[in-house]
């Protein structure tokens, strides 16, 4: 790997996940000198075991609140309490490492929701300054560059696309046929879930081996298309990109004119270092990027970097979540379906209610993803315990645990919906609490808009109807109207008006001409899908813009 030292490089990128990785690849290919600073470690495929305790229940991905707390208030008026929520994976590749890899595109209508819902009070939606058509080529690019498997043209509500997916769809469990039949019985249009998992070998990566440990785990064969498995190695191979892991950026330095000059960071050995760069791109997640900008105060930027509008940290949005489940009794299933099948993917989704048919006023729905319940044993048992308040234990819990493995196959549906940004959901810097480096932490204030909770319920009911029609019994739901904290957006929204946005259409700060933000911060609305694909596509889009500037000698 090329080493640049701390003299001025063309671009310094903070964060190596969905917002940083594609940008790094594009710029490195364009010949820019690129340094990526990543606060977490650089795991290799062999580090990703199925040891549930180590990987998904300790600080392998997400720091302990005792070391690096977030402060979280889950409802307006609730006190702030230390939490590990609001972090995505702290490692090279960020949240793309432990994602499930459900990668849907936004729909064209998503780019103009403020206009559509101007009559609905209480939200702070804004229209995007770009259209679906402007982003579409970059969706194609990310599907190709990171590797996405899927089948185009299966359902009438599919967002426009130029051609087939670059990888054929993944194999799936025979129970998927039940979901198909149930959906069709209800007049719905199921389609195969597009996944950021490669179904055939490519770029030195193995095809998926169907180990069934995607979400909350890293991929042991690099089949999951994390940026760490896909674009980062390609960027490093250009010899124009250096990645420094274990480097926590804590301030962006500026000169008297207010231009960004360098990133100050703490290395894994505790050394404080300054990396100079012509252009600085922040891609540390919507929460952590806002924290960094707010912490980077100077005479020219007394309220935080690029924050004259006061909007840095505001308009935070997530994705709403609902989970519905139901059990198929093995004894009642035909032989072909009863036994454990080696392939655990169901690979079915629905977007019939991306806009809820017949709902007056606010009709923004979302996406229902069907899956078989995750096989992680502790997680399974914990979920069963949590289905009762207070928690279930003793004989009853043990019976449930053994039943879950022996007697039933559990079908699940996850519902992803629009999280309406609102004045009560934001990130602020809280200097009263410090992390292990003595840095002020992010205080996350959350409040759901009543309309998005109501729609989450509508979609959960729809998912429930499908599971029931598929033969599932003992149906239940969790977290309806809940929040997916790993999907974060909006804290530096882009727009054409600098009074109402932090970034311009190229995700460049309105105030700091060499500062860009390329994680989910730019998104003025969250979409009714997990946002990872969109963040990656936009990162390629911004990269193309910067590469063009470089070609014209204007990268500064």
């Amino acid at each position, binding site marked *: 790997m090329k080493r640049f030292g701390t003299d001025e490089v063309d671009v310094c990128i903070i964060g190596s996940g969905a917002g940083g990785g594609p940008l790094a690849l594009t710029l490195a290919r364009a010949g820019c000198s690129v340094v990526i600073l990543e606060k977490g470690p650089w795991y290799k495929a062999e580090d990703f075991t*199925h*040891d*549930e*305790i*180590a990987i998904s*229940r300790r*600080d392998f991905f997400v720091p*302990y609140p*005792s*070391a690096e707390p977030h402060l979280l208030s889950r409802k307006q008026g609730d006190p702030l309490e230390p939490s590990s929520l609001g972090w995505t994976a702290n490692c090279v590749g960020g949240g793309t490492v432990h994602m499930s890899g459900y990668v849907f595109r936004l729909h064209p209508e998503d780019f103009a929701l403020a206009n559509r819902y101007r009559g609905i009070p209480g939200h702070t939606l804004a229209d995007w300054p770009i259209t679906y058509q402007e982003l579409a080529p970059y969706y194609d690019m990310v599907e190709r560059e990171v590797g996405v498997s899927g*089948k185009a043209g299966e359902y009438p509500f599919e967002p426009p696309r130029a051609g087939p997916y670059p990888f*054929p*769809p*993944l*194999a*799936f*469990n*025979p129970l*998927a*046929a039940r979901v198909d039949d149930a959906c069709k019985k209800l007049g719905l249009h199921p389609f195969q879930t597009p996944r950021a998992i490669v*179904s055939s070998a490519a770029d030195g990566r193995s095809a998926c*081996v*169907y*180990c*069934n*440990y995607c979400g909350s785990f890293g991929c*042991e064969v690099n089949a999951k298309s994390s940026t760490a498995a896909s674009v980062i190695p390609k960027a490093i191979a250009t010899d124009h990109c250096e990645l420094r892991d274990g480097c926590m950026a804590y301030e962006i330095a500026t000169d008297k004119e207010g231009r960004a000059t360098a990133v100050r960071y703490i290395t894994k050995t505790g050394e404080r270092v300054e990396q100079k760069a012509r252009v600085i791109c922040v891609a540390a997640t919507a929460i952590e990027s806002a924290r960094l900008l707010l912490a980077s105060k100077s005479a020219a930027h007394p309220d935080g970097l690029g924050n004259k509008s006061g909007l840095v940290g505001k308009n935070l949005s997530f994705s709403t979540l609902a989970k519905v489940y139901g059990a198929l009794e093995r004894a009642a299933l035909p032989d072909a379906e009863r036994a*454990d*099948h*080696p*392939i655990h993917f169901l690979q079915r989704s629905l977007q019939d209610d991306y806009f809820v048919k017949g709902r007056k006023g606010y009709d923004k729905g979302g996406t229902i993803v069907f899956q078989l319940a995750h*096989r*992680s*044993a*502790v997680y*399974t*048992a*914990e979920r069963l*315990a949590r289905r009762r308040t*207070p*928690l279930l*234990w*003793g*004989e009853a*819990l*043990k*019976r449930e*645990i*053994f039943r879950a*493995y*022996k007697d039933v196959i559990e079908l699940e549906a996850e519902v992803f919906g629009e999280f309406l940004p609102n004045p009560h959901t934001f990130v602020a810097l809280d200097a009263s609490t410090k992390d292990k480096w003595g840095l002020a932490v992010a205080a996350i204030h959350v409040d759901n808009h009543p309309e998005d909770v109501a729609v989450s319920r509508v979609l959960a009911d729809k998912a429930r109807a499908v599971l029931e029609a598929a033969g599932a019994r003992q149906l239940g739901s969790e977290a309806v109207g809940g929040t997916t904290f790993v999907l974060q957006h909006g804290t530096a929204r882009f727009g054409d008006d600098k009074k109402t946005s932090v970034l311009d259409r190229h995700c460049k700060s309105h105030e700091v001409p060499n500062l860009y933000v390329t994680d989910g911060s730019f998104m003025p609305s969250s979409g009714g899908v997990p946002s990872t694909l969109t963040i990656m596509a936009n990162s390629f889009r911004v990269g193309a813009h910067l590469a063009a500037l470089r070609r014209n000698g204007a990268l500064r």
Partner: protein
Amino acid sequence: MKASRRELLLGTAALGAAAIAGNACNEKPKLPEDDPRYQGLLFLVPIEARTVDAWIEQLLPADHPPGTPGARAANVLLYIDKQLAQKHFTTIARGVRRAAVILQRAAVAQGAAHFADLDAPAQRVLLERLQQNQLAAFAEKTNTAKTFDTVLLLALEGYLGDPSYGGNKDQIVWRALGDSPACPKPLDANAHRHGHHE
């Protein structure tokens, strides 16, 4: 084995009590806490270990469903003790220690020498009250409900997690479930037959 100060104190107290009771010989009397399972742990002293052992066996009792292992058979106590000894569990460990005292006090109030000496239904009644925060004295300002939930989650980890941490001894629980987190064997050609591969 290195005895903690607390352990030594408790041991001395037990010997003293035995002497008063008229045990003239020099041999240390055999106490349930002397069970080798409660010796040499990293955090829990023997008398606490016995409480926690009984506690988690109620959380995950053997033979429900019939023939399935309980927490004891899976060495969950060993797992929990190792976890509580870790720095990031300091606060939780303190809570568990407090809860063990509260259970012991409640058991003694019912005439038992130790929480583990109560029969299973009586243990469960006390645990239910612990879970509902109804057992601690107001002045103790202890959220036993939170501690109860944490112990339950740790017990599930020790029962169902990787055996390398000391619990799920010899994969006893995975074997009983008929499932383990190992990657499945390479797929045979027929495995894709339902997959509509193109």
